[in-house]
């Protein structure tokens, strides 16, 4: 009887450890896939805007160049789209692997930090450019720099990340899966306006 109870207890302990293991692996898969979705859509937008392809394909001559290649005379039009995707996939994979390792609280805050920085950096650069052309009473051309724009962007991002509560960061984490691609499409669509206003 004692022996039977012992075996039963062992089996139930084994079952519960299996359940814990399964739920842990499910949670890790969830984190990985969600982080991949957020990171890929964010990085794709950034790479497209900065024009950072992993490679450039020249379809007319059938040649592939590493990174960004400006076409030589007679090479025809370049194709960067493959290169942006090819760079965004491994970058997002690295980010998602890191996301499964770090504690959840840090992940939620890091996501807010990255998304806020991605929004504030170009916004501060645009604000600086407006200031230079419309408001500055001195030669403020030195402010027209990506690196100068980093300072207000980082300060703003740090403030947002600091003041947002952990509960809120956790609650909105899955929403980034929709916010980032839609925001990315707004940015990318805006860059295509030149075609629609000609």
């Amino acid at each position, binding site marked *: 009887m004692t022996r039977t109870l012992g075996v039963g207890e062992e089996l139930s302990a084994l079952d519960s450890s299996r359940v814990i293991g399964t739920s842990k692996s499910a949670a890790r898969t969830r984190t990985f896939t*969600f982080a991949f*979705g957020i990171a890929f859509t964010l990085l794709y937008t950034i790479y497209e805007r900065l024009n950072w392809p992993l490679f450039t394909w020249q*379809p*007319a001559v059938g040649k592939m160049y590493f990174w960004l290649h400006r076409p030589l005379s007679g090479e025809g039009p370049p194709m960067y*789209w493959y290169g942006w*995707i090819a760079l965004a996939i491994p970058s997002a994979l690295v980010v998602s692997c890191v996301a499964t390792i770090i504690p959840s609280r840090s992940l939620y805050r890091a996501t807010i930090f990255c998304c806020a920085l991605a929004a504030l950096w170009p916004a501060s650069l645009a604000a600086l450019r407006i200031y230079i052309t419309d408001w500055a009473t001195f030669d403020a051309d030195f402010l027209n720099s990506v690196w100068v724009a980093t300072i207000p962007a980082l300060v703003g991002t740090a403030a947002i990340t600091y003041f947002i509560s952990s509960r809120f960061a956790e609650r909105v984490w899955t929403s980034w*899966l929709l916010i980032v691609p839609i925001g990315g*499409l707004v940015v990318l669509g805006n860059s*295509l306006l030149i*075609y629609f206003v000609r």
Partner: protein
Amino acid sequence: MDIIFSVIREDTFWKILLFLHFLMAVSLLAAVTLQAASVLTSARQTTGNFIDRFSPVPAASYATVIILLYVPQALLGAFIYLKYRLYVRIPMEQLRHWWTLGAFEFKEHIIAMGIGLLPAYWYLWRQPISDEDAGVRRWLTVFLAVTIWYAFGAGHVANDFRGIGS
């Protein structure tokens, strides 16, 4: 490629691929539309009139089909894109079809976003389906449906400019 072109003419080869791309797009469109309709109406199915009680195939059963169609469809589109860049886009620029060109450029981005969201989409629809992520699952499905509808429309317009039957 030379082996293929020794059997069929080059333009026939590209037309076959384009037609295959179209067929897969229609299948994908049907699956994703039914799934999106299902997730948007599921909350009203237990009561109400005939339309409210309309119950399509369970939404989860479409997820695998959608992923299995989306990935090869994106790859096939990426391959056909080579031909588009040289033989469609350049005349488009020369004839100043800027709206068609801009719409197609946006298609590239919207498809890339869809590719990035596929792993999360797969997770959200795998069994057992969790109630915790019901909201994000519903809107991600709708977002994917919008991307596919947009891609279909933009692709169709580009095909009308220079493609099958144009």
